[in-house]
């Protein structure tokens, strides 16, 4: 039994080292000066550690602005995604009405479409709606592409709320909105937490769409800024990784604080990032 356990831990530790080493490596390089960034890759502690890369990212490279842009888009989009998808799920599961099946089919059909496939017509749509090159213009696209999955996820959850609870509230004279706010939302808290996490991470990290529609340097979000950083400073890997690690901080906070919801959300919804 002891041997089995020892073997188990050995394998798990090896797997951990392999999976985590690239991150350690990234941290290490971010503390190296430009001339030593390509030093011995197995030397974790840099010989002359420096904060220079972090200072440059924070002071010279507009990092604060890009972080603000990303946070603005991610927070507003997340709020709208959670609000609108929970409303849709409530409407679809708590009422019986004509057209329900059509809406449901349209949502499920949308789940099979990879978002990238739509990028050309979406680009023309954004042009016609005057939403190109605008930071707030990203929001309707982030919200629209996330609604299908999140509505689907929440529908599964709302369906489990017993109809008797609705009836009891109706007898007490509660309208639909009160049942939505006072019954459905409080009971769906774990599912809503999952929605918040996926919506936030998805919009904070979104790259392809922002790269396509944003030209103005002042409107850039972090992922584009980091990718373009690498183009401009292709030899300054320390700088690129310092910026990447700073951008990772909110993701890690959200992930570590809510990691138990990740398991629940993934098990119920099965989402590929």
């Amino acid at each position, binding site marked *: 039994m002891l041997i089995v356990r020892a073997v188990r831990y050995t394998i798990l530790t090896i797997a951990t080292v392999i999976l985590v080493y690239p991150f350690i490596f990234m941290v290490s390089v971010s503390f190296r000066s430009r001339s030593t960034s390509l030093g011995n890759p197995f030397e974790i502690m840099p010989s002359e550690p420096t904060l220079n890369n972090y200072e440059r990212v924070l002071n010279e490279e507009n990092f604060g602005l890009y972080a603000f842009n990303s946070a603005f888009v991610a927070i507003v989009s997340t709020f709208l995604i959670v609000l609108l998808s929970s409303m849709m799920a409530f409407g679809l599961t708590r009422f019986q009405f004509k057209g329900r099946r059509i809406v449901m089919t349209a949502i499920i059909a949308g789940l099979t479409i990879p978002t990238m496939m739509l990028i050309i017509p979406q680009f023309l749509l954004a042009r016609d709606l005057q939403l190109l090159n605008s930071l707030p213009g990203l929001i309707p696209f982030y919200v629209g592409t996330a609604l299908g999955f999140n509505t689907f996820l929440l529908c599964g959850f709302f369906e489990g709320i017993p109809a008797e609870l609705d009836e009891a509230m109706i007898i007490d004279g509660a309208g639909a909105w009160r049942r939505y706010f006072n019954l459905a939302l409080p009971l769906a808290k774990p599912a809503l937490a999952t929605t918040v996490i996926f919506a936030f991470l998805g919009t904070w990290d979104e790259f392809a769409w922002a790269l396509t529609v944003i030209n103005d340097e002042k409107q850039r979000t972090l992922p584009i800024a980091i990718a373009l950083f690498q183009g401009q400073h292709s030899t300054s890997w320390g700088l*690129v990784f310092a910026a990447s690690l700073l951008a990772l901080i909110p993701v890690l906070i959200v992930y570590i604080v809510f990691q138990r919801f990740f398991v629940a959300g993934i098990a119920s919804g099965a989402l590929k990032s």
Partner: protein
Amino acid sequence: MTATVPPVPRAAAAAGWKPTASSRRSTLAPWAFILPGFIIYAVVMLYPAVQTLNMSLHEWSIVPGADSPWIGLDNYFRAFNDPEFITSLVNAGVYTAVTVPIQMAIGLGLALLLNDHLPGRTLFRVLFYLPVVTSWVVVSLLFQFIFSSSAEGLANSLLIDVLHVADEPTSFFLNRWTAYIAICALGIWKGLGWSMLIFLAALTAVPKELHEAAALDGANAWQRFRNVSLPAIRSAVATVFILLVIGGFNVFISVMLMTGGENDTHVPLTMMYEQGFRFFDFGYGSAISFSLTIIVLGLSAFQYWWTKRKTKL
């Protein structure tokens, strides 16, 4: 899923209401909840989906209001006679064929190792899942650096100084297949944690009593896995398989950032992106998008049918 479940009994009917003015109001109530979101969804997702097909059948002019002649299936004939598109499909196929089985095998292995009341289990799980939550942009740049052509790059230094299987540093990104070693390594590293987590969730749901009963009957660890765990997680395995294949064919950011499609390393989405936003050939780009979607949907349908058939036997 929802389509087969009987809808929640109509609340109004259950409360014994007769059809009156108020029930007419209740037929409007659901739309007040659905429409705000559904309108955005329809404009941003459904309309572009239809538009992709429409554009692919035209020689699309990027000038607003200009004439875009209907050319039928010409863009599709062009795509399937375009060696670059065929190459991109082969690349995506190779990427999928390499990354999916490895991710599933290692993911399942790690899930089995963690499926116990092991001290430190949560820590391992959190660490294994870390690459999944890190953005594609960051990890693509990281792997570009790890596989850099210099002898001091992590991969080269591993091959030369540690494993002694090479004498000269390899310029990974200058050759189609060595580039795919790096791209696949990234895909596996980033995706592992995801399949592990789903398998772990499925394994946790297997009743402990079944394992105990099998152990009492003298089944060894392999037999218990084969006859108790595996049948219980079969649908999770099928789901992971289908979703990973879809994801594999839709690989985009890593290829775009690591090679930009140079040296025959395009995948369909990077090629579509180049046709659309570098050459502004929107009609051709749309045809590539639509072909890819149909191919992937066809594959998923086949996998679904195949796993259903296997489960019945």
